């Protein structure tokens, strides 16, 4: 892949334009850069493989592809310790509540990747009676990685796009903000009972 192709991502360009338009504080902007550099290079995934893509993800962790080169190697088994969730495989009706729950358990700032055709759109199982046609119906997705299953190189590409996104984000006052309980309840009225 050529370098200019790698940089060809309208979504991130828009994000940068938005940031530049609102302007950044000189001091805070520098701290943002420093922290984002650290965050982007220590992205911890949550182990969340449901089918074939999970095997390719294991190959990503094994010796040949070695995701430790990019700082992705600390695959966590608890959502509370992970930075992002990479949905590897089909999500079916029975699994959907579990996925949403895991997503809510992740600590902010958090990201989600839809990996493979099934997670992107339902893939080969689109139209089945119990398959969710794309996980973006359930949780907000940052990066989509097509493929069935995507090659490890494609997964790297997707993960590096996530790194790029993190590097241009505003950390202080941006993704680092703490959500007030009242705000959360007002946006998720169905969870009000459980939170109180």
């Amino acid at each position: 892949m050529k370098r200019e192709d790698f940089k060809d991502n309208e979504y991130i360009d828009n994000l940068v334009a938005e940031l530049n338009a609102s302007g950044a504080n000189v001091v805070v902007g520098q701290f943002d850069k420093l922290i984002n550099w650290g965050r982007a290079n220590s992205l911890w995934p949550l182990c969340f493989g449901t089918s074939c893509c999970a095997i390719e993800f294991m190959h990503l962790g094994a010796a040949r592809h070695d995701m430790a080169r990019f700082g992705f190697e600390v695959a966590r088994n608890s959502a509370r310790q992970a930075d992002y969730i990479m949905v590897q495989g089909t999500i079916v009706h029975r699994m959907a509540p579990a996925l949403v729950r895991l997503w809510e358990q992740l600590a902010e700032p958090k990201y989600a990747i839809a990996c493979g055709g099934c997670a992107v759109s339902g893939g080969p199982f689109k139209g089945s009676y119990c398959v969710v046609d794309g996980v973006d119906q359930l949780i907000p997705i940052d990066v989509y990685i097509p493929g069935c299953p995507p090659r490890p190189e494609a997964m790297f590409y997707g993960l590096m796009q996530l790194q790029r996104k993190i590097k241009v984000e505003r950390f202080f006052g941006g993704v680092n903000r703490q959500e007030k309980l009242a705000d959360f309840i007002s946006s998720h009225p169905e969870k009000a009972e459980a939170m109180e």
Partner: protein
Amino acid sequence: MANIQETISKLFPEAAFEQGEELRVTVDAKQWRALAEQLKGNADLGFDYLVGIVGCDWKESMGCVYYFTNTSTQDHLMVKVTTADREHPVLHSVSDLWKVALIQEREVFDFYGIIFTGHPDMRRLFLRTDWVGYPLRKDYDANPELNPVRLNQEPNEDATAEYVEEADGSIKKIDKKVFEDEEYVVNFGPQHPSTHGVMRLRASIDGETILKVDPMCGYIHRGIEKLCESKTYPQTLMFTDRMDYMSAHQNRHCLCLCIEKALGIEVPRRAQIIRVMMDELMRLSSHLLSYGCMTMDMGATTAFFYGFREREEILDIFEKTCGARMSLHYNVIGGVVADVHPDFIKDVRAICSIMPDRLKEYHKLFTGNVIAQNRTKGVGVLSKEDAISYSVTGPSGRATGWHCDVRKTAPYSIYKELDFEEITETAGDSFARYMVRMREIEQCVKLLEQLCDLLEKEPGNDYIAPKVPKIIKLPAGSWFQQVEASRGAFGVYIESTGEKSPYRMHFNSPCLNIVGSVDKACAGYKIADLITITASLDYVIPDIDR
């Protein structure tokens, strides 16, 4: 074969017979229980291995197709049981005779709503407890408003029922609970790194000892069998690669064999050799993954990297010839999709030459380790009788001493000509299952070396049969085909009405049976052994759920 027919017709004069590739018996639901007892108990019949139960909806009637095998004579029998009542279809359970029916009858209930009287635990298997309707019925209402994506917790997870037939013929429902209120239940899954996918197990424990394990499947149930009914035959091939993705070639080979059998297509010899080579490479890569995962589950992280190092080299071979690493799509009806890459034989020989040394490394790293031995020897024991009753085939079945390798018992393709040994152990514990896989790697290498020689002797590029029809329509009828996949006997059942798409396509997966035996294998052992036992049983979740 004639003896079986005589014996059955003497006992059940109303039974209808048909001679297909195996003897086929059709009986009414009322006679089924008596026939089943004879099939199991009568010394002249002795069908001790229930291969699979296929639920089916024939519009005017519903029922099940049972496939049996006699493990000593290798006689096959198909029994078709029908009931005309579509509103409340009821059959008698055979779960006390063949334990595998415990889980397979639940699958039929989930898909068709057929109630099995006498089954101790009649509840849904794959779908949510609040699912509306039975999806594989031909009159199923697929309206998404009936079954939206529900994000609440499933209600009444513990509720189950047993249906009993009263003396006057009415059916009485007895409500039961999977776990009693006073039981201490540990939940495990669905998102857990050691479940090898999205499996959920609930174990009730007394101190550290497991009393009962309740596997909950369906977290990756994608409804493949229903999808197949709306696809043409070449399109259905695509799903087989995504069920047990560690035996993609074997599964696809099985479906191709079944369709070719129905159409009477003869596959060229070169294509057959290539198919078998791919099957064995797949088995090799699958056993390497099992080794890696089992060792990692027990804490030996280094061993995982060793297993994956060789796997990558096999995936390279696949990539050169098939163009993909995992969803290979290589077998097609009549042969394979393209001839092998020019480097193929050289690469396979290279794998064969390195594997013996690498195997020594594996054994040095893990097999001889005292902790590994203590945690696997004498743990999770299944006896040979258990394995047959639960239909646990493949390496897990052979570890009990049961000769269940389909490549030997019912050779398909060119396996008859090949010289290899069927690996069995006798202990039936986790260690025996592990050792069967390691020794099968040696046999894979032995087979691949022979196959390389055979392929060199078979030049040309006859990789596909010349006369495969453009539009594939199977004649009306039903077919069943089994192959030995990496994890056991994989079966395909096709029922056709002469259309372009199958009327019913059922995949009889080995892993579902293995999961059915988890309770038997784990009860009485420690909760810490649950992981090692399930890792050594080595199931792949999308194969269970389909």
